[in-house]
């Protein structure tokens, strides 16, 4: 139990001026690092995989299955939690125990990213830095939009997510995958449902995607390039016939954090061979 936040006389440490931040949510952690406040981090959740050094911090578990007591034991002066962190009863327990808790909104859009940065920065007392970074990101997104607008094509992109068993899931409307595809000047191939649903082979053929987009993990789980292209429902699509698979890092692609303009740029280049850097 080293590094825990109680002092010898049993007084709680929230009064001290040393920041002890627990960050829940991969993109929230990224923002803390981007603002240069990572020295105050004492723990992160299991979705906080970037940057690499975040993985060396104590891990409080999956963001939707937090436990109150271990987090209190870390003596946090600030708990940053992404919008859908939970369970709610545990957040209530933490509030009740007096942990300063800031819930960070999580909207997969350029405005959402800027808002996230502002909320995190304000919680850290870095309003100035937050405003600057939010403005820079907004400008990046605007430049990206203008740049993507120069392309004539709008390829249909099928995003696949494998969770390790059964058919992979396809991304429908209102997903962060659909959001990033849009930013990169593509069209989400599936618009018949919201969220992630198991891939229906015939619907896939009908959707006729030009490109298959996967995360590195899904790429491996599905058995790599050959295995994905030779799935019958993929082989029957333009993407399958042209061998168009794009593989990107999952957190970069779907995280909607400070690196999202970079992710959208990378995806745009992969989708539009005619784009000039």
């Amino acid at each position, binding site marked *: 139990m080293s590094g*825990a936040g109680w002092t010898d006389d049993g007084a709680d440490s929230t009064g001290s001026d040393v920041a002890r931040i627990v960050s829940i949510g991969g993109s929230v952690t990224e923002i803390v690092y981007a603002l240069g406040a990572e020295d105050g981090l004492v723990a992160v959740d299991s979705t906080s995989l970037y940057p690499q050094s975040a993985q060396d911090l104590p891990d409080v578990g999956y963001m939707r299955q937090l436990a*109150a007591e*271990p987090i*209190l034991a870390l003596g946090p002066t600030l708990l940053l939690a992404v919008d859908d962190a939970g369970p709610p*009863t545990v957040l*209530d327990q933490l509030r009740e125990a007096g942990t300063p808790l800031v819930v960070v909104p999580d909207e997969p859009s350029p405005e959402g990213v800027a808002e996230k940065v502002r909320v995190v920065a304000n919680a850290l007392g870095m309003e100035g830095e937050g405003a600057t970074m939010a403005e820079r990101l907004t400008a990046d997104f605007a430049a990206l939009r203008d740049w993507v607008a120069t392309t004539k094509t709008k390829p249909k992109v099928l995003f696949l997510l494998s969770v390790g068993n059964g058919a992979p899931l396809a991304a429908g409307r209102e997903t962060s995958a659909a959001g990033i595809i849009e930013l990169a000047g593509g069209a989400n191939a599936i618009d018949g449902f919201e969220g992630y649903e198991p891939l229906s082979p015939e619907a896939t053929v009908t959707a006729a995607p030009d490109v298959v987009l996967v995360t590195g993990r899904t790429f491996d789980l599905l058995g790599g390039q050959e295995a994905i292209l030779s799935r019958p429902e993929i082989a029957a699509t333009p993407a399958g016939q042209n061998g168009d698979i794009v593989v990107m890092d999952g957190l970069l692609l779907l995280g909607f954090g400070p690196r999202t303009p970079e992710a959208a740029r990378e995806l745009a280049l992969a989708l539009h061979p005619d784009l000039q850097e």
Partner: protein
Amino acid sequence: MNIAHDPVAASTRRRRRVGVFLAVLGVALLLTIVVAAGYGAVAIPPERVVAILAGWLGFASASETGDTDSIVLLAIRLPRVCLGLLAGAALAVAGAALQGLFRNPLADPGLIGVSSGAAVAAAAAIVLGGSAVAFLPAGSLTYLIPVAAFAGGLIITFVVYRIASRDGRTEVATLLLAGIALNAISGAGIGLLIFLSDDQQLRDLNFWLLGSLGGVTWERLLPAAPLMLVPTILLAMLWRHLNAFLLGETEALHLGFDVERTKRWIVVLAALAAGSSVALTGIIGFVGLVVPHLIRLVIGPDHRSLLPASVLLGAILLLLADLLARTIVLPAELPIGILTSLIGGPFFLWLLVRRRGMGMW
């Protein structure tokens, strides 16, 4: 003369042995409660624990309450320990009673549909509750899942029981088979809800199905506590009936027991005990199945001692499993259902192999 042939002396010795065993379990439970309350992620020195508890119970100045230590102990750890105590006792005694009623070593609350009924209703609350909660008073989402789980467990048990009853008689074999069939149907229902859920709900669902004592508050525990405690006590008091059942239904009838009434009571009480536990903890496997077997192994099948011993050992095991679950992967927590099944599964296998062919269930 060999003393073992003296039946009176043998019976006295047996009774003394059972008494000692129950006393040992009682002391072990007290120790387990002390350890479980005193140990956790937040290190609270023993003298602070005593001071905070004394303050809480009104024996000391109020200055001992209100800081982080006392909030952790009183608002987070203590309700959790109480839940472990009640749920462990309720699940184990329900298992012991059902095994006695069915004269079947495989019976446990899961078999008559309580767990799967609770699971399918909880899954529905998790997946569909978000849209339903708009019509309910604010803050009701916290109670929606446990209430749904409790109701689901009772409803499925009731359906199983109705199917097995005909002309005022209940066939135990039909009861078991109907339980298995409804478990399969519930499984399909959970599968459908998994299909309908988005990835967040899927995660919530998975964690609920793995069980956890975390996140329990006094506000959630107190309404459910009597629903666990009362059936537990009543079941333990039915030892005479269950002993009569050991001889067979006809024999129990000849001994003057109202067999049908007893069956109904045991099923209802077991469903209440297990349903209210599962509602707060999610699915926790193997406590109801394994604890009574363990007890029988040591002191035999007499329900007079089997039932209270199951209460004590069930509470001890669940408290210890929870202590492990919340401390071995700090600062995260393991779902407790993983631990009980991981420990309970191999243990049960060992028990099976050991007792195979001995015909002493």
